């Protein structure tokens, strides 16, 4: 497993890690910064993580995925710090012998990451900023 927090996401590193002669499929999900949210211009996102717990929780999710699907390799990499629109901020990648497992596992991994991994983003607009999801 390749699980880590980084300043800058490197797509090639993830792909290189996931490649394997046993795998007939490599599935990569790349989450990027969108320049709009609820009708407002987003100029920047700041990501903050509780590093030790974020890694631990990503490991739990990864183990769950290995139990559910026959995966060859798995990568979860999340960026921290200030990020501008268009920039990649998270990579979820898996390789498997056949494509169904890698598609399904990839979806599971990003959905679970968003629910439980202690990473927070603050959205900066033209005129103010908010911590995403903080308030009902």
């Amino acid at each position: 497993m390749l699980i880590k927090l980084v300043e800058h996401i490197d797509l090639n590193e993830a792909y290189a890690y996931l490649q394997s002669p046993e795998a007939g499929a490599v599935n990569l999900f790349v989450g990027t910064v969108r320049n709009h949210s609820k009708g407002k211009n987003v100029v920047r996102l700041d990501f903050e993580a509780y590093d030790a717990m974020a890694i631990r929780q990503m490991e739990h999710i990864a183990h769950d995925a290995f139990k559910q699907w026959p995966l060859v390799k798995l990568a979860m990499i999340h960026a921290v710090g200030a990020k501008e629109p268009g920039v990649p901020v998270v990579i979820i990648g898996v390789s498997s012998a056949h494509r169904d497992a890698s598609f399904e596992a990839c979806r599971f991994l990003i959905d679970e990451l968003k629910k439980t991994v202690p990473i927070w983003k603050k959205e900066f607009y033209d005129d103010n900023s908010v911590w995403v999801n903080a308030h009902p």
Partner: protein
Amino acid sequence: MKVLLFGITREITGQSRINIPENAGINTVKALKSWLGQQYPALQSLSSLAIAVDSEYAQDEDALTPEQEIALIPPVSGG
């Protein structure tokens, strides 16, 4: 007892770490949440507030001890 703070809870309290006095008598997750809510009422308006102990989510009835790493986890928004 020390509590680590992140994101909006760090901004609400103005600190990245709170030292809770021993005489506050806090020994469960539930008691800690209640104490923090009284000290910092703005925490009560958050969508959710979890406590982590040694990098795992804790339940309200779980016991707390000073040697654990305790953190306040506001609603997450990674990805």
